[in-house]
């Protein structure tokens, strides 16, 4: 073990910024030549300050922080500028010094916490690795310190969890472990790169509150990298807005939200869903005429399109004994062998109605949508679609029935749900070729082009492959594919979760327009009430497999009837407007 590199005396009389980035330019060598991902970025961070770097994907906000820690991948390099940490020139520092600084003075939290942890090493051991590396403890005391860290990030039963592997923990729990790992050596600066993306709102709030509390307690400085303006406003002193590799605005968070100066900041603010704002108002001013809101309220008197009664779905518990070993051992099994994901829910969706299904991850909303899609079979209960009990039809058979055309889905991850070897046109044509009654190449192509027009996908993009399309374009392909067979019901499974706010605004509006013109019903599954209420007339709130509340979205947003819904609402961070 190397002797720790001495850190220059901090705060020697004059107020030196903890981190100072001057004129930073980062280049990446790619096949198509050198790309400047970050250009002439300047900002500094005082001791104990919390700074947010806000921007959409590709704005260079992550690259800036990777450059500061010198953990860019091999293709990237700092081309110009200076990074200094407590007066130490990080660009010139030898690699060994950098290694000592990383984790001990500057640490980082990443998005996708489960992937950020070594899948085959016990989480306690991973924390120990960092502690031992920076000579914070000796080998004998390491385990105790690791357990203490787990306790500090509020992991229940830390002694037991020390021996857990990442796959045995939930996403929120994994993020706590990553935080414990980052804070274990008591660094002075913490860089959190989208620490809560992929976590649901209540977990996000818990993780962020914990993070703020721990960093404040230790007098640490924090950089929060996020695309979520609400999050930045709620937790940071100062905000730096980046666009296409450049800093466009930098100000205190109060100021920036009250008087955003740069048009890009204004555009971002505008597109962020917030209370009291209509769906149409999310679009930039002057982009298309605001269509009149559909006056026709859903016809409640008519027979509903879909009625669900007492729907139950049990899953066998992981690690439950198989049938074979049950034969061998006749002792009673102590724990119930199954896990009830959906626990007797009943609701209905009217024709032309949009219903939101909201809840934290693990509440059973995805299982419910799979059940309605007839991708899996329920344990009991009925699903009546347009007068026919489709719950009686096994999922296996349903795929080949004409009814399949009438219930379609838009998936959460626009990238992963497209076949990487199909062009956009082929992806859209897929359901037509399988279930549609169009024959002949020209007819199918014409229909694809018509659909592309409907979802606003430029026709020249139809022959591109998914990797050649942007996130928003891929989302459009996914939507075009779902509406290709003119379905009556479309299940939207967090269709905008992976999109930037401005793209999200456009896609949500597109969905609304499509619904108005095609007369479909939507079931919008999401964890974000603020997004759901933009699109939905009615909201169903689920918790632990049960429906805890349902009603008109306006009423639920204003006066929620249950504590759980209140908790969900309170967890959404808002810009101070």
């Amino acid at each position: 073990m190397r002797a720790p590199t001495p850190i220059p005396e901090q705060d020697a009389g004059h107020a030196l910024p903890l981190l100072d980035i001057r004129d930073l330019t980062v280049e990446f060598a790619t096949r198509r030549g050198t790309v400047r991902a970050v250009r002439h970025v300047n900002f500094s961070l005082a001791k104990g300050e919390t700074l947010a770097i806000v921007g959409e994907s590709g704005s260079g906000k992550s690259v800036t922080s990777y450059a500061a820690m010198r953990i860019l991948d091999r293709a990237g390099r700092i081309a110009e500028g200076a990074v200094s940490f407590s007066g130490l020139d990080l660009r010139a520092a030898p690699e060994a010094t950098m290694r000592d600084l990383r984790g001990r003075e500057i640490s980082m939290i990443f998005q996708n916490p489960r992937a950020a942890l070594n899948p085959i090493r016990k989480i306690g051991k991973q924390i120990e690795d960092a502690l031992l590396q920076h000579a914070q403890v000796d080998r004998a005391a390491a385990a105790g310190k690791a357990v203490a860290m787990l306790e500090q990030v509020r992991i229940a039963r830390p002694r037991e969890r020390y021996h857990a592997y990442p796959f045995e923990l939930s996403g929120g729990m994994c993020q706590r472990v990553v935080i414990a790992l980052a804070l274990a050596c008591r660094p002075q600066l913490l860089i959190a790169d989208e620490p809560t993306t992929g976590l649901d709102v209540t977990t996000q709030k818990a993780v962020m509150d914990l993070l703020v509390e721990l960093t404040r307690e230790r007098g640490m400085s924090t950089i929060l990298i996020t695309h979520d303006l609400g999050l930045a406003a709620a937790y940071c002193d100062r905000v730096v807005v980046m666009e296409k590799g450049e800093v466009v605005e930098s100000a205190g968070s109060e100021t920036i939200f009250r008087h955003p100066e740069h048009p890009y900041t204004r555009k971002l603010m505008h597109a962020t869903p917030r209370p009291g704002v209509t769906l149409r108002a999310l679009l930039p001013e002057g982009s298309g005429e605001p269509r009149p809101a559909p006056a026709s309220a859903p016809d409640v008197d008519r027979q509903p399109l879909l009625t669900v009664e007492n729907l139950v779905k049990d899953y066998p518990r992981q690690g439950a004994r198989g049938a074979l070993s049950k034969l061998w051992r006749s002792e009673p099994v102590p724990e119930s062998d199954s896990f009830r994901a959906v626990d007797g829910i009943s609701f209905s969706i009217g024709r032309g109605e949009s219903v939101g299904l909201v809840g934290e991850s693990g509440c059973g909303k995805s299982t419910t949508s799979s059940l309605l899609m007839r991708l899996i079979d329920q344990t009991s209960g009925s699903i009546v679609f347009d007068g026919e009990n489709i719950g009686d039809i096994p999922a296996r058979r349903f795929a080949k029935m004409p009814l399949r055309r009438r219930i379609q889905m838009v998936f959460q991850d626009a990238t992963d749900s497209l076949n990487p070897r199909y062009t956009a046109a082929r992806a859209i044509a897929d359901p037509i070729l399988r279930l549609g009654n169009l024959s002949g190449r020209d007819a199918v192509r014409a229909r694809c082009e018509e659909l592309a027009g409907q979802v606003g996908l430029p026709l020249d993009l139809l022959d591109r492959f998914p990797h050649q399309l942007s996130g928003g374009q891929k989302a459009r392909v996914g939507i075009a594919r779902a509406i290709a067979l003119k379905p009556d019901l479309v299940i939207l499974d967090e269709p905008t979760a992976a999109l930037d706010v401005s793209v999200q605004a456009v896609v949500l509006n597109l969905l609304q327009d499509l619904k108005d013109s095609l007369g479909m019903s939507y079931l919008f599954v999401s964890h974000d009430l603020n997004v759901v209420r933009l699109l939905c007339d009615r909201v169903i709130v689920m918790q632990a497999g049960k429906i805890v509340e349902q009603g008109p979205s306006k009423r639920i947003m204003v006066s929620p009837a249950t504590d759980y819904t209140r908790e969900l609402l309170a967890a959404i961070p808002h810009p101070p407007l």
Partner: protein
Amino acid sequence: MLATLGKRLATAIPTLIGVVIVTFLLTRVLPGDPAVYFAGPAATPQSIAEVRKSLGLDRPLPEQFLRYVGDLAHGDLGNSLSTGQPVVKELRSRLPASAELTLSGLLLSLVIAVPLGVLAAVRQGSWIDHICRIVATAGVSLPVFFTGLLLVYIFYFVLGWAPSPVGRLDAFATAPPSITGFYLFDSLLARDFESFRAALSQLILPAVTLAVFSLAPIARMTRASMLAVLSSDFVRTARASGLATRTVIVTYAFRNAMLPVITTLGMVFSFLLGANVLVEKVFAWPGIGSYAVEALIASDFAPVQGFVLAMAILYVALNLAIDVLYGVIDPRVRVDG
């Protein structure tokens, strides 16, 4: 752990039953009539019919099969028609020879290929990466009999460093008392270092031949899986927490990268069992492969059936070992077990 092992063993049983049926049928549909072959060139139809009767080949297939299974249950694989020896006895003496050769080859290639693959990935694009590519390409493009003959030509004929490439021991050494059947182990156990040296010097060339052949898949797989793991999020986390390069590469990257390599290893082992046949021919190695080929040419059922069955059992055992190893390395596998 034991329950998992038992469960995996239980799933192997249908495979083995299938193998027994297929080997039986396969040898019956192979061209060539063993009765004609053994009756000799001057046979009359009557004598052929007699031979057929004595071999039990005149019976209907199901009856032949039942008899075959009955014999199997008693550990009787029949007698070889060409040598007259019981197949079990022959297999027992030849299998260790093949296993020793294959395992040494595999071990040798592991020792070279894994570090080579790791280095090639860590120093991607450097000279060591190019060496890795060249070695791997050369290794697969050379057929084993050619590599074998080349090695014999250079090290035995030209340089005279290697002993004559005939069998497992030279004429002056005596075989050690059989305990494991592996001469290297047995001679060490008997503290007979002279035999050990003799066995080792006979083993080196054929083992190298096999190693050259199996180098490529292992090195390439190690490199590819190392590269994938090195660019993963958790390696970035490890680097961001300032862990030493050695810890990052060994504890974080390498152990994760080993998972697909172990799977490849199982496949490479089975390729090697096949490649063995040629190597055994070139080096006059008294192994199971050359035995099976000779029997096949002679339409001699029993040894072929015995060979296929032995290979199948070996392969099942190997896969079981790999599954267990996987479970040891990867905690995620243990859950589904």
